[in-house]
Protein backbone atom coordinates (compact mmCIF):
# COMPACT_ATOMS: atom_id res chain seq x y z
CA UNK A 1 0.00 0.00 0.00
CA UNK A 2 1.45 3.38 -1.00
CA UNK A 3 1.74 6.12 1.60
CA UNK A 4 0.04 9.51 1.22
CA UNK A 5 1.37 11.73 4.02
CA UNK A 6 -0.85 14.67 4.78
CA UNK A 7 1.87 17.19 5.59
CA UNK A 8 2.64 17.68 1.88
CA UNK A 9 0.57 18.76 -1.14
CA UNK A 10 0.53 16.88 -4.45
CA UNK A 11 0.47 17.57 -8.17
CA UNK A 12 -1.51 15.42 -10.63
CA UNK A 13 1.88 14.64 -12.20
CA UNK A 14 2.88 12.82 -8.98
CA UNK A 15 5.27 15.35 -7.45
CA UNK A 16 4.83 16.39 -3.82
CA UNK A 17 5.63 19.80 -2.32
CA UNK A 18 6.23 20.74 1.33
CA UNK A 19 6.36 24.33 2.60
CA UNK A 20 9.24 24.59 5.09
CA UNK A 21 9.59 26.95 8.05
CA UNK A 22 12.13 29.05 6.16
CA UNK A 23 9.66 29.66 3.34
CA UNK A 24 11.29 27.35 0.81
CA UNK A 25 9.35 24.48 -0.76
CA UNK A 26 10.91 20.98 -0.85
CA UNK A 27 9.86 18.87 -3.82
CA UNK A 28 10.05 15.15 -4.63
CA UNK A 29 7.99 12.36 -6.19
CA UNK A 30 5.31 10.41 -4.36
CA UNK A 31 5.45 6.89 -2.96
CA UNK A 32 2.87 5.87 -5.57
CA UNK A 33 5.16 7.22 -8.31
CA UNK A 34 8.38 5.55 -7.10
CA UNK A 35 6.52 2.25 -6.76
CA UNK A 36 5.24 2.48 -10.32
CA UNK A 37 8.69 3.40 -11.66
CA UNK A 38 10.62 0.57 -10.01
CA UNK A 39 14.30 0.87 -9.09
CA UNK A 40 15.49 4.43 -9.76
CA UNK A 41 18.90 4.52 -11.41
CA UNK A 42 19.58 8.14 -12.43
CA UNK A 43 17.99 11.44 -11.52
CA UNK A 44 18.49 14.57 -13.64
CA UNK A 45 17.87 17.62 -11.49
CA UNK A 46 17.46 21.30 -12.36
CA UNK A 47 20.33 23.65 -11.57
CA UNK A 48 20.50 26.02 -8.64
CA UNK A 49 19.22 29.38 -9.79
CA UNK A 50 16.91 27.99 -12.49
CA UNK A 51 13.60 29.81 -12.68
CA UNK A 52 10.67 27.45 -13.18
CA UNK A 53 7.03 28.12 -13.98
CA UNK A 54 4.30 25.86 -12.62
CA UNK A 55 4.15 22.79 -14.85
CA UNK A 56 7.58 23.37 -16.41
CA UNK A 57 9.84 20.40 -16.96
CA UNK A 58 12.19 20.30 -13.98
CA UNK A 59 14.19 17.13 -14.61
CA UNK A 60 14.05 13.44 -15.44
CA UNK A 61 13.86 10.24 -13.39
CA UNK A 62 15.36 7.19 -15.09
CA UNK A 63 14.29 3.88 -13.63
CA UNK A 64 14.90 0.33 -14.77
CA UNK A 65 11.50 0.50 -16.45
CA UNK A 66 11.35 3.91 -18.12
CA UNK A 67 12.42 7.53 -18.17
CA UNK A 68 9.88 9.96 -16.67
CA UNK A 69 9.84 13.73 -16.80
CA UNK A 70 9.28 15.55 -13.53
CA UNK A 71 7.53 18.90 -13.43
CA UNK A 72 7.62 21.92 -11.14
CA UNK A 73 4.40 21.83 -9.08
CA UNK A 74 4.49 25.59 -8.46
CA UNK A 75 6.53 28.51 -9.83
CA UNK A 76 9.79 29.55 -8.19
CA UNK A 77 13.59 29.71 -8.31
CA UNK A 78 15.65 26.58 -7.54
CA UNK A 79 17.35 27.22 -4.19
CA UNK A 80 19.02 23.84 -3.64
CA UNK A 81 19.29 20.39 -5.21
CA UNK A 82 19.78 17.00 -3.53
CA UNK A 83 23.30 16.03 -4.58
CA UNK A 84 23.03 12.75 -2.63
CA UNK A 85 20.83 11.37 -5.41
CA UNK A 86 23.81 11.15 -7.75
CA UNK A 87 25.44 8.41 -5.67
CA UNK A 88 22.29 7.03 -4.06
CA UNK A 89 19.38 7.21 -6.50
CA UNK A 90 17.73 4.36 -4.59
CA UNK A 91 16.86 6.92 -1.88
CA UNK A 92 13.97 7.90 -4.15
CA UNK A 93 12.56 4.38 -3.76
CA UNK A 94 13.49 3.88 -0.11
CA UNK A 95 12.49 7.30 1.23
CA UNK A 96 10.49 9.28 -1.35
CA UNK A 97 9.32 11.92 1.17
CA UNK A 98 12.57 12.02 3.17
CA UNK A 99 16.09 11.44 1.84
CA UNK A 100 14.73 11.03 -1.69
CA UNK A 101 13.83 14.74 -2.04
CA UNK A 102 14.82 16.26 -5.41
CA UNK A 103 15.17 20.04 -5.05
CA UNK A 104 13.99 23.09 -3.12
CA UNK A 105 12.30 26.16 -4.58
CA UNK A 106 12.02 29.68 -3.34
CA UNK A 107 8.37 30.01 -4.39
CA UNK A 108 7.13 32.95 -6.43
CA UNK A 109 4.05 32.91 -4.20
CA UNK A 110 3.65 30.44 -1.33
CA UNK A 111 -0.16 30.73 -1.74
CA UNK A 112 0.29 28.65 -4.91
CA UNK A 113 0.56 25.65 -2.57
CA UNK A 114 -3.23 25.87 -2.20
CA UNK A 115 -3.69 25.09 -5.87
CA UNK A 116 -2.10 21.68 -5.31
CA UNK A 117 -4.02 18.56 -4.23
CA UNK A 118 -4.54 17.36 -0.69
CA UNK A 119 -3.37 13.86 0.21
CA UNK A 120 -6.95 12.59 0.06
CA UNK A 121 -7.66 14.04 -3.39
CA UNK A 122 -4.34 12.80 -4.77
CA UNK A 123 -4.95 9.33 -3.36
CA UNK A 124 -8.34 9.22 -5.13
CA UNK A 125 -6.65 10.07 -8.43
CA UNK A 126 -4.08 7.30 -7.91
CA UNK A 127 -6.80 4.78 -7.16
CA UNK A 128 -8.70 5.76 -10.30
CA UNK A 129 -5.50 5.40 -12.34
CA UNK A 130 -5.06 1.81 -11.22
CA UNK A 131 -8.40 0.75 -12.67
Amino acid at each position, binding site marked *: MAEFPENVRYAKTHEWARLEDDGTVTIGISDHAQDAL*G*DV*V*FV*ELPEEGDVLGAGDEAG*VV*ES*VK*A*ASDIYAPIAGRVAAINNELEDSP*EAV*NDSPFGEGWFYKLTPENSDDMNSLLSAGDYQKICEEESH
Partner: protein
Amino acid sequence: MGLKTPMYEQHVTAGARIVDFGGWDMPVHYGSQIEEHHKVRQDAGMFDVSHMTVIDIKGSESQAFLTRLLANDICKLTLSGKALYSAMLNEKGGVLDDLIVYDNNGDYLMVVNCGTREKDLAWISQQAEAFDCSVTERPELAIIAVQGPNAMAAVDKVVGNETRSVIKSLKIFQGGYSSTWFIARTGYTGEKGLEIILPAEEARQFWEDLANNGVRPIGLGARDTLRLEAGMNLYGNDMDESVSPLESNMGSTVVLEDHEFIGKSALLKKLDKGTREQLVGLVMTERGILRAHYPVFCNGQQVGEITSGAFSPTLRHSIALARISVATGELTVGIRKKQFAVQRVTPPFVRNGKQVYKTL
Protein backbone atom coordinates in the same frame (compact mmCIF):
# COMPACT_ATOMS: atom_id res chain seq x y z
CA MET B 1 -6.38 -13.11 -15.54
CA GLY B 2 -3.60 -15.16 -17.07
CA LEU B 3 -2.15 -18.62 -16.76
CA LYS B 4 -0.47 -19.38 -13.45
CA THR B 5 2.52 -21.54 -12.62
CA PRO B 6 2.46 -23.90 -9.59
CA MET B 7 4.40 -21.31 -7.55
CA TYR B 8 2.02 -18.39 -8.21
CA GLU B 9 0.66 -18.19 -4.64
CA GLN B 10 4.20 -18.34 -3.25
CA HIS B 11 5.21 -15.37 -5.44
CA VAL B 12 2.26 -13.35 -4.20
CA THR B 13 3.05 -14.20 -0.57
CA ALA B 14 6.66 -13.16 -1.15
CA GLY B 15 5.48 -9.71 -2.27
CA ALA B 16 5.86 -10.13 -6.02
CA ARG B 17 4.70 -7.46 -8.46
CA ILE B 18 2.80 -9.67 -10.92
CA VAL B 19 2.67 -8.75 -14.62
CA ASP B 20 1.35 -10.37 -17.76
CA PHE B 21 4.05 -12.18 -19.71
CA GLY B 22 2.86 -13.95 -22.84
CA GLY B 23 -0.49 -14.71 -21.23
CA TRP B 24 1.01 -15.81 -17.89
CA ASP B 25 0.83 -13.96 -14.54
CA MET B 26 4.51 -13.76 -13.67
CA PRO B 27 6.61 -12.00 -10.99
CA VAL B 28 8.60 -9.09 -12.46
CA HIS B 29 10.23 -8.37 -9.09
CA TYR B 30 9.73 -8.97 -5.36
CA GLY B 31 10.68 -5.44 -4.26
CA SER B 32 13.87 -4.47 -6.08
CA GLN B 33 15.07 -6.00 -9.33
CA ILE B 34 18.51 -4.46 -8.80
CA GLU B 35 18.89 -6.19 -5.41
CA GLU B 36 17.70 -9.46 -6.97
CA HIS B 37 20.28 -9.07 -9.75
CA HIS B 38 23.12 -8.58 -7.23
CA LYS B 39 21.88 -11.57 -5.23
CA VAL B 40 22.34 -13.88 -8.21
CA ARG B 41 25.80 -12.53 -9.04
CA GLN B 42 26.96 -12.71 -5.41
CA ASP B 43 25.04 -15.58 -3.82
CA ALA B 44 22.10 -17.63 -5.16
CA GLY B 45 18.67 -16.90 -6.59
CA MET B 46 15.85 -18.99 -8.01
CA PHE B 47 13.65 -18.36 -11.04
CA ASP B 48 10.23 -19.84 -11.75
CA VAL B 49 10.36 -20.39 -15.50
CA SER B 50 7.51 -22.89 -15.66
CA HIS B 51 5.84 -20.73 -18.30
CA MET B 52 8.38 -22.01 -20.83
CA THR B 53 7.52 -24.94 -23.11
CA VAL B 54 8.95 -28.45 -22.58
CA ILE B 55 8.73 -30.90 -25.48
CA ASP B 56 9.64 -34.60 -25.78
CA ILE B 57 10.98 -35.69 -29.16
CA LYS B 58 10.96 -39.49 -29.28
CA GLY B 59 11.33 -42.21 -31.90
CA SER B 60 13.79 -43.99 -34.13
CA GLU B 61 14.23 -40.97 -36.45
CA SER B 62 14.45 -38.26 -33.76
CA GLN B 63 18.03 -37.44 -34.58
CA ALA B 64 17.40 -37.28 -38.33
CA PHE B 65 14.41 -35.03 -37.66
CA LEU B 66 16.31 -32.60 -35.42
CA THR B 67 19.22 -32.60 -37.86
CA ARG B 68 16.84 -31.10 -40.39
CA LEU B 69 14.88 -28.92 -37.99
CA LEU B 70 17.74 -27.10 -36.24
CA ALA B 71 20.47 -24.80 -37.57
CA ASN B 72 22.97 -26.22 -35.07
CA ASP B 73 24.08 -29.82 -35.44
CA ILE B 74 22.26 -32.25 -33.12
CA CYS B 75 24.87 -34.90 -33.94
CA LYS B 76 27.26 -32.94 -31.71
CA LEU B 77 25.40 -34.46 -28.76
CA THR B 78 27.43 -37.60 -28.15
CA LEU B 79 27.34 -37.45 -24.36
CA SER B 80 24.21 -38.56 -22.50
CA GLY B 81 22.20 -35.53 -21.38
CA LYS B 82 24.41 -33.02 -23.22
CA ALA B 83 22.72 -29.77 -24.18
CA LEU B 84 22.72 -27.88 -27.48
CA TYR B 85 21.69 -24.25 -27.96
CA SER B 86 20.26 -23.66 -31.42
CA ALA B 87 18.16 -21.43 -33.61
CA MET B 88 15.19 -22.96 -35.42
CA LEU B 89 14.70 -21.36 -38.84
CA ASN B 90 11.99 -21.04 -41.45
CA GLU B 91 12.66 -21.57 -45.16
CA LYS B 92 13.78 -17.94 -45.55
CA GLY B 93 16.44 -18.38 -42.87
CA GLY B 94 14.47 -16.26 -40.41
CA VAL B 95 14.61 -17.21 -36.75
CA LEU B 96 11.42 -18.90 -35.53
CA ASP B 97 12.85 -19.34 -32.04
CA ASP B 98 15.99 -20.09 -30.08
CA LEU B 99 15.95 -23.14 -27.85
CA ILE B 100 17.89 -25.71 -25.87
CA VAL B 101 17.69 -29.42 -26.65
CA TYR B 102 19.14 -32.16 -24.43
CA ASP B 103 20.11 -35.68 -25.42
CA ASN B 104 17.81 -38.11 -23.63
CA ASN B 105 19.40 -41.47 -24.49
CA GLY B 106 18.44 -41.51 -28.14
CA ASP B 107 15.39 -39.35 -27.62
CA TYR B 108 15.49 -35.60 -26.94
CA LEU B 109 14.11 -33.10 -24.45
CA MET B 110 13.59 -29.61 -25.83
CA VAL B 111 12.79 -26.31 -24.11
CA VAL B 112 11.41 -23.46 -26.20
CA ASN B 113 10.14 -19.99 -25.33
CA CYS B 114 6.77 -19.20 -23.79
CA GLY B 115 5.63 -16.57 -26.28
CA THR B 116 6.30 -18.87 -29.23
CA ARG B 117 4.57 -21.95 -27.81
CA GLU B 118 1.72 -22.34 -30.32
CA LYS B 119 3.82 -21.34 -33.31
CA ASP B 120 6.67 -23.68 -32.37
CA LEU B 121 4.48 -26.68 -31.58
CA ALA B 122 2.60 -26.33 -34.86
CA TRP B 123 5.80 -25.96 -36.86
CA ILE B 124 7.69 -28.75 -35.10
CA SER B 125 4.74 -31.17 -35.37
CA GLN B 126 4.29 -30.38 -39.03
CA GLN B 127 7.97 -30.88 -39.85
CA ALA B 128 8.05 -34.14 -37.84
CA GLU B 129 5.39 -35.75 -40.04
CA ALA B 130 8.03 -36.89 -42.52
CA PHE B 131 9.98 -38.73 -39.82
CA ASP B 132 9.35 -41.69 -37.55
CA CYS B 133 9.20 -39.68 -34.32
CA SER B 134 6.67 -38.15 -31.96
CA VAL B 135 6.40 -34.60 -30.65
CA THR B 136 4.76 -34.33 -27.22
CA GLU B 137 4.38 -31.22 -25.13
CA ARG B 138 4.89 -31.77 -21.39
CA PRO B 139 2.67 -29.07 -19.82
CA GLU B 140 2.55 -30.98 -16.52
CA LEU B 141 6.21 -30.13 -15.86
CA ALA B 142 7.48 -27.07 -14.01
CA ILE B 143 10.94 -25.50 -14.38
CA ILE B 144 13.00 -23.95 -11.60
CA ALA B 145 16.39 -22.40 -12.29
CA VAL B 146 18.81 -21.88 -9.39
CA GLN B 147 21.74 -19.64 -10.33
CA GLY B 148 24.70 -18.00 -8.68
CA PRO B 149 28.06 -18.91 -7.12
CA ASN B 150 26.26 -20.63 -4.21
CA ALA B 151 23.44 -22.17 -6.25
CA MET B 152 24.75 -25.72 -6.47
CA ALA B 153 25.52 -25.81 -2.74
CA ALA B 154 22.01 -24.56 -1.96
CA VAL B 155 20.34 -27.22 -4.11
CA ASP B 156 22.63 -29.87 -2.63
CA LYS B 157 21.29 -29.07 0.86
CA VAL B 158 17.64 -29.72 0.01
CA VAL B 159 17.72 -32.74 -2.31
CA GLY B 160 18.08 -36.46 -1.54
CA ASN B 161 21.18 -38.59 -1.96
CA GLU B 162 20.26 -39.94 -5.40
CA THR B 163 19.71 -36.46 -6.81
CA ARG B 164 22.86 -35.26 -5.10
CA SER B 165 24.97 -37.87 -6.86
CA VAL B 166 23.32 -37.19 -10.24
CA ILE B 167 24.20 -33.50 -9.88
CA LYS B 168 27.75 -34.34 -8.86
CA SER B 169 28.21 -36.39 -12.03
CA LEU B 170 27.10 -33.61 -14.39
CA LYS B 171 29.58 -31.77 -16.55
CA ILE B 172 28.93 -28.20 -17.65
CA PHE B 173 26.07 -28.01 -20.17
CA GLN B 174 24.97 -31.53 -19.36
CA GLY B 175 21.77 -32.83 -17.80
CA GLY B 176 20.58 -36.05 -16.24
CA TYR B 177 17.55 -37.70 -14.67
CA SER B 178 17.04 -38.39 -11.00
CA SER B 179 13.74 -40.28 -10.94
CA THR B 180 11.29 -37.89 -12.66
CA TRP B 181 13.44 -34.78 -12.23
CA PHE B 182 15.66 -33.65 -15.13
CA ILE B 183 18.55 -31.56 -13.83
CA ALA B 184 20.95 -29.67 -16.07
CA ARG B 185 23.98 -27.46 -15.62
CA THR B 186 22.62 -24.77 -17.88
CA GLY B 187 21.26 -21.27 -17.30
CA TYR B 188 20.39 -17.85 -18.64
CA THR B 189 22.45 -15.70 -16.28
CA GLY B 190 26.13 -16.35 -16.98
CA GLU B 191 26.51 -17.76 -13.46
CA LYS B 192 27.04 -21.37 -12.35
CA GLY B 193 23.82 -23.16 -11.52
CA LEU B 194 21.13 -25.61 -12.45
CA GLU B 195 17.90 -25.73 -14.37
CA ILE B 196 15.51 -28.34 -13.01
CA ILE B 197 12.51 -29.69 -14.92
CA LEU B 198 10.20 -31.48 -12.52
CA PRO B 199 6.59 -32.57 -12.04
CA ALA B 200 4.41 -29.57 -11.18
CA GLU B 201 3.07 -31.20 -8.01
CA GLU B 202 6.60 -31.41 -6.57
CA ALA B 203 7.70 -27.94 -7.62
CA ARG B 204 5.94 -26.00 -4.85
CA GLN B 205 7.70 -27.97 -2.08
CA PHE B 206 11.08 -27.73 -3.79
CA TRP B 207 10.66 -23.95 -4.16
CA GLU B 208 9.75 -23.63 -0.49
CA ASP B 209 12.67 -25.84 0.60
CA LEU B 210 15.06 -23.64 -1.37
CA ALA B 211 13.52 -20.49 0.13
CA ASN B 212 13.93 -21.91 3.63
CA ASN B 213 17.60 -22.45 2.85
CA GLY B 214 18.33 -18.87 1.93
CA VAL B 215 17.71 -18.92 -1.82
CA ARG B 216 15.93 -15.74 -2.83
CA PRO B 217 13.20 -15.68 -5.50
CA ILE B 218 14.21 -13.60 -8.53
CA GLY B 219 11.79 -11.92 -10.93
CA LEU B 220 11.74 -11.48 -14.69
CA GLY B 221 13.17 -7.96 -14.42
CA ALA B 222 16.45 -9.20 -12.97
CA ARG B 223 16.36 -12.20 -15.30
CA ASP B 224 16.53 -9.76 -18.21
CA THR B 225 19.42 -7.68 -16.85
CA LEU B 226 21.37 -10.83 -15.92
CA ARG B 227 21.05 -12.39 -19.38
CA LEU B 228 21.90 -9.08 -21.07
CA GLU B 229 25.09 -8.71 -19.01
CA ALA B 230 25.92 -12.29 -20.04
CA GLY B 231 25.46 -11.34 -23.71
CA MET B 232 22.55 -13.71 -24.25
CA ASN B 233 19.81 -12.97 -26.76
CA LEU B 234 16.11 -12.61 -26.01
CA TYR B 235 13.79 -13.84 -28.75
CA GLY B 236 11.36 -11.18 -29.82
CA ASN B 237 13.82 -8.41 -28.96
CA ASP B 238 17.20 -9.38 -30.40
CA MET B 239 15.91 -11.60 -33.16
CA ASP B 240 12.67 -12.66 -34.80
CA GLU B 241 11.50 -14.14 -38.10
CA SER B 242 12.61 -11.07 -40.03
CA VAL B 243 16.32 -11.69 -39.36
CA SER B 244 18.67 -14.64 -39.69
CA PRO B 245 21.08 -15.97 -37.07
CA LEU B 246 23.90 -14.35 -39.07
CA GLU B 247 22.59 -10.88 -38.17
CA SER B 248 21.87 -11.89 -34.58
CA ASN B 249 25.30 -12.70 -33.19
CA MET B 250 24.38 -16.41 -33.55
CA GLY B 251 26.64 -17.32 -36.48
CA SER B 252 28.66 -19.66 -34.28
CA THR B 253 25.52 -21.72 -33.51
CA VAL B 254 24.93 -22.46 -37.20
CA VAL B 255 26.60 -25.53 -38.74
CA LEU B 256 26.66 -25.34 -42.54
CA GLU B 257 29.20 -28.07 -43.36
CA ASP B 258 27.72 -31.52 -44.07
CA HIS B 259 24.43 -30.43 -42.57
CA GLU B 260 21.16 -30.04 -44.48
CA PHE B 261 18.60 -28.07 -42.50
CA ILE B 262 15.56 -25.86 -43.03
CA GLY B 263 16.75 -22.39 -43.99
CA LYS B 264 20.24 -23.42 -45.12
CA SER B 265 19.90 -22.33 -48.74
CA ALA B 266 18.61 -18.92 -47.66
CA LEU B 267 21.63 -18.51 -45.35
CA LEU B 268 24.03 -19.50 -48.12
CA LYS B 269 22.50 -16.82 -50.38
CA LYS B 270 23.02 -14.26 -47.62
CA LEU B 271 26.62 -15.28 -47.18
CA ASP B 272 27.15 -15.01 -50.92
CA LYS B 273 25.82 -11.48 -50.98
CA GLY B 274 27.68 -10.58 -47.81
CA THR B 275 25.73 -9.88 -44.60
CA ARG B 276 25.03 -6.22 -44.30
CA GLU B 277 23.77 -6.11 -40.72
CA GLN B 278 25.13 -7.33 -37.42
CA LEU B 279 24.11 -7.47 -33.78
CA VAL B 280 26.68 -5.66 -31.66
CA GLY B 281 27.13 -4.81 -28.00
CA LEU B 282 27.01 -1.18 -26.89
CA VAL B 283 28.19 0.41 -23.68
CA MET B 284 27.39 3.94 -22.49
CA THR B 285 29.36 5.34 -19.57
CA GLU B 286 27.45 8.64 -19.48
CA ARG B 287 24.49 8.93 -17.15
CA GLY B 288 21.39 7.55 -18.84
CA ILE B 289 19.85 4.31 -20.01
CA LEU B 290 19.91 2.72 -23.46
CA ARG B 291 16.53 1.23 -24.28
CA ALA B 292 15.04 -0.94 -27.06
CA HIS B 293 14.24 0.93 -30.30
CA TYR B 294 16.47 3.94 -29.59
CA PRO B 295 18.17 4.86 -32.91
CA VAL B 296 21.89 4.29 -33.44
CA PHE B 297 23.89 6.76 -35.58
CA CYS B 298 27.28 6.70 -37.27
CA ASN B 299 28.71 9.85 -38.88
CA GLY B 300 25.34 11.57 -38.65
CA GLN B 301 23.40 8.76 -40.36
CA GLN B 302 21.08 6.32 -38.65
CA VAL B 303 22.60 2.84 -39.02
CA GLY B 304 20.23 0.83 -36.88
CA GLU B 305 18.53 0.61 -33.52
CA ILE B 306 18.87 -0.92 -30.09
CA THR B 307 17.20 -4.32 -29.70
CA SER B 308 17.73 -4.78 -25.94
CA GLY B 309 18.99 -2.18 -23.48
CA ALA B 310 19.20 -1.81 -19.72
CA PHE B 311 21.06 -0.47 -16.75
CA SER B 312 23.70 -3.03 -15.79
CA PRO B 313 23.68 -3.31 -11.99
CA THR B 314 27.10 -5.02 -12.00
CA LEU B 315 28.80 -2.39 -14.18
CA ARG B 316 26.68 0.54 -12.89
CA HIS B 317 26.06 1.96 -16.34
CA SER B 318 23.97 1.12 -19.35
CA ILE B 319 24.60 -1.69 -21.83
CA ALA B 320 22.71 -2.76 -24.93
CA LEU B 321 22.53 -4.97 -27.98
CA ALA B 322 21.87 -3.21 -31.26
CA ARG B 323 21.37 -4.29 -34.85
CA ILE B 324 23.31 -1.98 -37.14
CA SER B 325 24.41 -2.01 -40.75
CA VAL B 326 28.07 -2.92 -40.96
CA ALA B 327 29.78 0.40 -40.38
CA THR B 328 33.02 1.72 -39.10
CA GLY B 329 33.25 4.89 -37.09
CA GLU B 330 32.11 6.34 -33.81
CA LEU B 331 28.58 5.44 -32.80
CA THR B 332 26.04 7.56 -30.98
CA VAL B 333 22.56 6.76 -29.68
CA GLY B 334 19.62 9.16 -29.80
CA ILE B 335 17.96 9.54 -26.39
CA ARG B 336 15.15 12.06 -26.15
CA LYS B 337 16.47 14.58 -28.70
CA LYS B 338 20.12 14.36 -27.64
CA GLN B 339 22.92 12.14 -28.91
CA PHE B 340 25.18 10.19 -26.59
CA ALA B 341 28.46 8.52 -27.46
CA VAL B 342 28.53 4.74 -27.07
CA GLN B 343 31.36 2.24 -27.22
CA ARG B 344 30.96 -0.78 -29.49
CA VAL B 345 31.94 -4.06 -27.77
CA THR B 346 31.78 -7.82 -28.31
CA PRO B 347 29.41 -9.44 -25.81
CA PRO B 348 29.42 -10.77 -23.10
CA PHE B 349 29.67 -7.67 -20.92
CA VAL B 350 30.14 -9.47 -17.58
CA ARG B 351 31.71 -12.76 -16.61
CA ASN B 352 32.43 -13.98 -13.06
CA GLY B 353 30.90 -10.77 -11.76
CA LYS B 354 33.32 -8.49 -13.57
CA GLN B 355 33.51 -6.46 -16.77
CA VAL B 356 34.91 -8.60 -19.54
CA TYR B 357 34.26 -6.75 -22.80
CA LYS B 358 36.96 -5.28 -24.98
CA THR B 359 36.53 -2.41 -27.35
CA LEU B 360 36.29 -3.46 -31.00
